[in-house]
């Protein structure tokens, strides 16, 4: 199991920034540019690892701890999720709750680290992050409820395996609704358009990026890396929900999973190219929309069952 954990961590760390690269390429394609190379996110993180740190005199150790917690929580959550043919090294009855709460831990530290700087901009970002994530978490749990009812399991990897495959013929529309709702949560949780804009942090309308305004060097690298891993894990869950590839040979599963991830990254890129960011007071409505989608899914399941 120890080796399984290590292998999982290494794979997740090696592949997660690639997703950002694909999104970047897609966006560049839509604006008619070549765009940065596919491996640009790796270069960015690598560059930050060679930079020194600047710490604000206002800050305490919390400012430095948040990036570490952020990345560690994201990595630990990846251990609960299967990657294609590779089984999740740690799984237990009820791990979906821990899965969601690990991100809660990371978020709490990011928010207080933003408040630690004493900057009004970061306070603004922290306040918005805290507000919107409350709603996003509720939708995430509602999606989980639908999947739990469908699969009769509280284990993340079993929840998205076998049973879902058998429920496709009967519950196809439900899975599509839940998938759509989960995709909206995915965009919100990972600070993507239309909830947040990952490309800029100086507008007063930004949420996630503005919280990392004062971080530099290794701290910033950890934050970027942690966000990339979070996108990879939550995205992987999306692919697992919607693509019924389980029961195939491990090799085929891995290929299908990889293809699914690439399609997801392109999909996010397309959304980001076609849409503008929503006005801030629209974000709750966006999340309530996601909530309603999942709720309809749940009702259909309950009526059919």
């Amino acid at each position, binding site marked *: 199991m120890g080796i399984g954990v290590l292998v999982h961590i290494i794979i997740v760390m090696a592949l997660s920034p690639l997703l950002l690269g694909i999104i970047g390429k897609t966006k560049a394609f839509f604006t008619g540019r070549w765009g940065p190379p596919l491996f640009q996110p790796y270069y960015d993180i690598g560059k930050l690892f060679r930079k020194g740190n600047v710490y*604000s005199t206002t800050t305490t150790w919390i400012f430095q701890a948040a990036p570490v917690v952020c990345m*560690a929580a994201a990595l*630990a959550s990846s251990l609960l999720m299967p990657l294609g043919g590779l089984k999740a090294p740690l799984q237990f009855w009820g791990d979906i709750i821990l899965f969601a*709460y690990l991100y809660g831990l990371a978020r709490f530290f990011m928010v207080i680290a933003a408040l*630690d700087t004493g*900057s009004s901009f970061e306070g603004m970002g922290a306040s918005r992050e805290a507000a919107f994530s409350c709603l996003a978490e509720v939708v995430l749990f509602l999606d989980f409820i639908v999947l739990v009812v469908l699969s009769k399991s509280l284990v993340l990897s079993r929840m998205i395996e076998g049973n879902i495959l058998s429920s496709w013929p009967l519950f196809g529309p439900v899975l599509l609704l839940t998938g759509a709702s989960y995709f909206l949560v995915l965009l919100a949780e990972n600070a993507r358009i239309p909830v947040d804009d990952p490309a800029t942090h100086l507008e007063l309308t930004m949420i996630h990026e503005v919280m990392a305004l004062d971080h530099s060097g*290794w701290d910033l690298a950890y934050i970027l890396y942690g966000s990339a891993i979070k996108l990879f894990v939550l995205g992987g869950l999306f692919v697992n929900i919607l693509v019924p590839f389980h029961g195939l040979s491990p090799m085929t599963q891995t290929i299908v999973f990889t293809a699914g991830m690439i399609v997801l990254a392109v999909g996010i890129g397309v959304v980001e190219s076609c849409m503008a960011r929503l006005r801030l007071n629209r974000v709750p409505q966006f999340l309530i929309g996601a909530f309603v989608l999942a709720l309809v899914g749940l009702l259909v399941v309950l009526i059919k069952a």
Partner: protein
Amino acid sequence: MSFFLSSLVILCAGALLSVLLTRSRRVSGAVFLGTLISGCCLGAAAAVGVLLRPGRIHGDYRWNFRMPLGEFRLGLEPLGAFFLLAIAVLFLWAGIYGYDYLKHDGKKNVSVHYALYHLLLIALMLIVTAKNAVLFLVAWELMTVSSYFLIVFYDEREAVRKAGYLNLIATHTGTFCLLIMFLLMGHHTGSLNFDQMALASFPLPLAGVLFVLAVLGFGVKAGFIPLHIWLPHAHPAAPSHVSAVLSGVMIKMGIYGLMRVILIVKGFPEWCAVVLLLIGMTSGVGGVLYALGQHEIKKLLAYHSIENIGIITLGLGIGLWGQIVHNEFTALIGYAGALLHVFNHAMFKGLLFLSAGSLIRATGTGEIDQMGGLLKKLPWTGHLFLAGSLAICGLPLFNGFVSEWLVYRALFEGMFQFKLNAVVWSSLAIISLALIGGLAAACFAKAFGAVFLGNSRSLDITRVKENSALMRVPMAVLGGICVWIGLFPAMMVSFALRGAAAMTASAISPATEEMIAAPLKTVVLVLLVVIAVMAVLTLFKRISMRFLPVAKAPTWGCGYSVPTARMQYTAASFAQPLLDIFRNVLGYQVKGNKPKGYFPVEGKISSRVTEASEDFIFRPAFELIKSVSARLKIIQSGYTQLYLFYIFAFLLILLIWKMV
């Protein structure tokens, strides 16, 4: 049982001696500490003894002292023992803290306060062991009265006197319901002893009536919304160590009472479980939303007590549901989750109130919006407050997560095994619990961030100093317990399961216990991975910092060159987006005049949250009672003859009634 009785005797002696030795503060203080420590240790030992060996019959003590209508009968059972453990641990550390806390109130009569503190402890110990309804009610009254006097310690302030009075009225209204409830039970079963009552079977309609009375009576004490109005006033008014025990264990007596009634009556109609789930959801979400709107630290914490009572009630509700549909597995997890959360909440809320007290002692104020940057000045208080915050938000690594995980799991299990309507209610409860978690995190990020991080907004903190060791050690111990249960939950979970098994009146097989506790072992494994990864990442960064330049600079002002501390986000502004989303529920209002023109002279803004149940239910209700009583005044003329006439008329009516 002998441990428990000797603990009671020691505490009684301590209370008496403290009053007798009022003259010398030092002697009465020493007596207080000595009896407190020995009494609490003995009490905790008695509780642990019962929880370790639940199969054995534990003492059933009867004192040959006939009280009118009842008898003095005590018994220590797993359910009561679990509560007793929380009571003993929290009272011990809060008491030691209080001993030092009160030293600074030089002129007050502290000895009486010591005695009352002991009395409250004795009352709570009697409540969780009483086996007779009359004794239970007597202990309940003792709790009410002693807590009233503890709350009004700072009685020179009007708000404190009002809060104490409100507490007294509210609890007595609750006791009225309890009196009727116990009378109904006694009437039906022919005995006021809990054991005999439990042997009888209750028809469902009667069980429903008893349930409603129990919810009303015990709900006032527990602080269910909308019966909670006394709670947010009383907890901030009391000295901090008293707030800690009030919020940590006294309001849990409402929960204990409810569980005791469930234990006696056993068979309930299904709507009772739905009512409990509904109460859990409204109290949980409502409590945390009101807390978000508060900017005084102890008031904020008081509202969070309501939130946690909500979480506990969710566990109780799903447990009761499991019991009703004979699904013992779900019932066990639900009850165990509720019980463990009772203990956990006692620890972290105790810790939070103690550190809030330490904060107020050091700065002289509890207004969050004035503070900032205190982590550097008050490292102990600050870090322990952070630990308490993480625990109360239910975040992994701390104890709150373990009990919330159990409640979540019970709710999910309920979805698998029950009928359709249960799935609907469980889903709603799960969603509420998720919302509560998110909102609590936002609220404590706000409280911790605004008080301890950034720069001080308007408070002069240059002379702020950390408090004495005698105040810091109790906080550190409570924080240590929070981390211990968070990382090694096995023991407390098994204790909670013993209490839960007493509720379902079943012995848990080792296989069932394994099914419930085994996942928690993997939780710990994942948490260890988190800790290991954090250690590795920190190590790498530390090494890199040797080779790379590290600079210090002021916070980047985004190009603005003279930012001031007043420009930071305040607690009020931090909470604004969330309060705005829920403005219709909270009656959230923002008032003020915004600065106008190119060279604005002044501007101010203030926001507040309305207490709906206070303003729209209780105030009108009390006004109504007042006006009706005013009308009734005409029969009170003051003439003796008239009163004699009343008596005569009444006798006449009775006679006629008897004849017909």
